């Protein structure tokens, strides 16, 4: 066991934990943040994507020790403090992206990181960046479109603001 100091969605935390435990299980079981999902456990699907100091990582395969002294952001932490959804989240609603939704926390975290790095991505950049995120429901076309909507490259399909 070891004590790791992390900030999670802006809140500093000190946790006594096996330093080898993947971030995924710390976040889900110890911190009760269940939006981050388990899909494969071997860095193949991206369902578990979180940000570590703004960089996307596969939390199923990243030990909590790697987060010591760093900031973890999960799907629960990307809306504004007043609850206003991020541009990416809003685009996910306007393009009606999710089917089952299970992969979508990870997709949104990857897309958010992509737009931070490349605010105006082209198709190839989107495809390459999002290649680590599987959507078994096959919503790739909508994800691609929603990323462009969030980037302001394309107009949104539905104009309604989310309730």
């Amino acid at each position, binding site marked *: 066991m070891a004590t790791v100091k992390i900030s999670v969605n802006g809140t500093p935390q000190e946790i006594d934990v096996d330093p080898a435990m993947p971030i995924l299980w710390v976040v889900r079981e110890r911190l009760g943040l269940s939006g981050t999902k388990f899909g*494969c456990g071997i860095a193949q699907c991206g369902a578990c994507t979180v940000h570590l100091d703004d960089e996307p990582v596969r939390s199923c395969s990243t030990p909590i020790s790697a987060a010591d002294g760093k900031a973890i952001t999960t799907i629960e932490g990307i809306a504004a403090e007043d609850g206003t959804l991020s541009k990416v989240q809003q685009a996910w609603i306007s393009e009606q*992206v999710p089917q089952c939704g299970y992969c979508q926390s990870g997709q949104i975290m990857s897309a958010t990181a992509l737009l931070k790095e490349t605010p105006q991505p082209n198709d190839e950049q989107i495809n390459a960046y999002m290649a680590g995120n599987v959507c078994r429901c096959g919503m790739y076309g909508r994800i691609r479109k929603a990323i462009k909507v969030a980037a302001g490259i394309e107009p949104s399909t539905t104009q309604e603001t989310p309730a």
Partner: protein
Amino acid sequence: MSDTETTAVDPDKPERSKAAKWTRRGFIGAGALAGGALLVGVAVRSGNPVGKLKPIVAGGDGEALINSWVKIDADNIVTAIVPHCEMGQGANSTLAQMLADEMDVSWDNVRVMDAPADGNYVSQHAVRTFVGPGTIPGKPNQVSFMEPTYDGLFTQIGKLADAYITGGSSSVRSTGQNGMRVAGAAAREMLIGAAAAEWGVPADEITTQDGVLSHAGSGQSAPYAQFAAAAAEQTLPRAPRIKQASEFKLMGTPALRKDIPCKVDGTGIFGIDGGPAEGPGKDALRYAAVKAAPVVGSTVEAIDASAAKAMPGVLQILNMGDFVAVVADSYWQAQQALRSVKTTYSKTEIDGLDTEQMFAQYAAALDEAGMDGGNSKADYGDAAGALSSAAKTVEAEYKVPFLAHATMEPMNCTAWVRDGKCDIWTGTQVPLMSRKGAAEGAGVGEDDVTMHTVMLGGGFGRRLTPEYANQAARIAKATGYPIKMIWSREEDTAQDFYRPADISRFSGGLDEQGRVVGWSNIHCSEDEPAEAPLVEFYDIANVSVRGAEVEAPLRLGAWRSVGHSQHGFFVESFVDELAHAAGKDPLEFRRTLLANSPRHLAVLEGAAKMADWGSDLPEGHGRGIAIARSFNSIVAEVAEVDMTGDMPRVTKMFCCVDAGYAMNPDGLSAQMESGIIYGLSAALYNEVTIKNGAVEQSNFHDYRMMRMVDAPQIAVQIINGAPDNLGGAGEPGLPPAAPAVANAIFAASGTRIRELPIAKHFA
């Protein structure tokens, strides 16, 4: 849709008119005639089973249950109570859309609630059309077994047949048409009746809009909520008036799905997220990792847990007979420890089994049957005669592998057994069956099991079995802890209920003009649904379709689009081969064959037009077309492939669909996109193989999913070809995808793909 159609008696089930006996209410009886169990849309009255549901669905004060499909709150919020699990299709939202439209309430004021897993909410249509013999393990004859209970299905089916099911693409066409719309219309008429009585005006002078009742003559108006209680006392209308398509306000529009907001902010609760929310149950929660014997029929003979026991956080290591479970303070610890448990399994008769042997057995069964052995599935004209006198005959054999579902969320279940009761959180397409499995595992009565509603991280037919709920309940009972059991991806891949493999042989005859005069087919699989291999929409006079019986000692199950996933590929590949043998363009060839099937033809033309069929493509690119009808929807797809790389790349898919009427066009389109990608993953990459009796694949590195970089552009066009005859949405997009691609590969390269997956041929 007219009233008479809503209340029509199904010709092959005339005895269902008796349903009115137990209701003595016109609307209920009528609904039962058309939709069986969908008629839980019943007013609250004593002696009615809905009374039992009232405490479950009723919220705070001031709410009245008008009927069990719809609830109106004091603040005029309308809740549609939906008897299907939300697997991700958005179907529940569409159902609510149908109800809200008939009821004249605005979309903003509508909420959706999953029905509790209680026998009073059952989807009989799904049972009848989807759960064919053999689909549910241990229930070899589910459908006929249930028929005798038809009249009493209210109370019987749930208990006897565990039949609350989401599958068969049935929710909208069945629950929506026969349940939700009728219930919405009935609720509206009852509200009007109540207002008319109170205001002392004729009911037909009262109008409704956005949840408000108005009477122009007297200037009175009131929100629905004001009359909710009084309406519950109204006699149910005998035949509530259902809107004509021209009157639709919400139906046919891309209303935003209600389930999406919670899927973008992490608040949605899936099975894996469920569990006791607060208090002692939450504190006591522990985690279980499991590994079942890898070969069907094998058991755990002995375990050596000495290393695992010493590992941090490990609480208990259990030999459960058919599987090993490790319970620990965290799931990761349980998984780590499970890996170090050494297990010996009992020998079975299939320890030496491998996929090659199975295919050899299939081929031998087909050899033995010839083209005229086995069981007949369709036989009209004289196929053998037509083939022997044909100017040209074409023969081909196709082969498809076993497939896993690979839902994004692996199987999991949280169970808490205490004081003779059991709480269950699990994503399932069959809550009543899972409840039964949990009850057996926990050693309690079914009524003592509470099923908590959670979302499903994908279903596709995988979550039609109760074994994982049973496992979790057994572990919870054995340990005394509330247990969150999660299958690893490896376990999920190894312990699936697989899409059956199959071999299908064809012989086709052409006349001098290149017209199809004879069609003979024999294949191995049990066909679910029975129509899957049939070709009656093609204008072929002499047809024989037969099936040879084979055994596959594996766990087999329903996989998205069921038998259509195989036969779509077989039939449409062979039609393409016939077209080329006749020297005709595959589109032109199908046009001729579909001369007597106008809806099919329109869909075919639609897809061809979208793809600009016949226009030039770059060197090394090709186009293929395929059409299939499944779950009462007709879908044609044109695939474009690029053969200039090492592996065929699908660049575009054009999809034209006629699902009768698109209640939510954007939702239907999303389902087509989804079915296409699911079908392409399978067509291009996927096969489950067996070695030494066990499944060889384990995770996404060896059971590959299509990713964004491989995903084609998809365009979908919708034809509303039969507003009174709805088709499904979740599955019909899949069957044409594989043959369209295989046919495109042939067009581009001259290579005919007769065996899936395609990647096999380009390794």
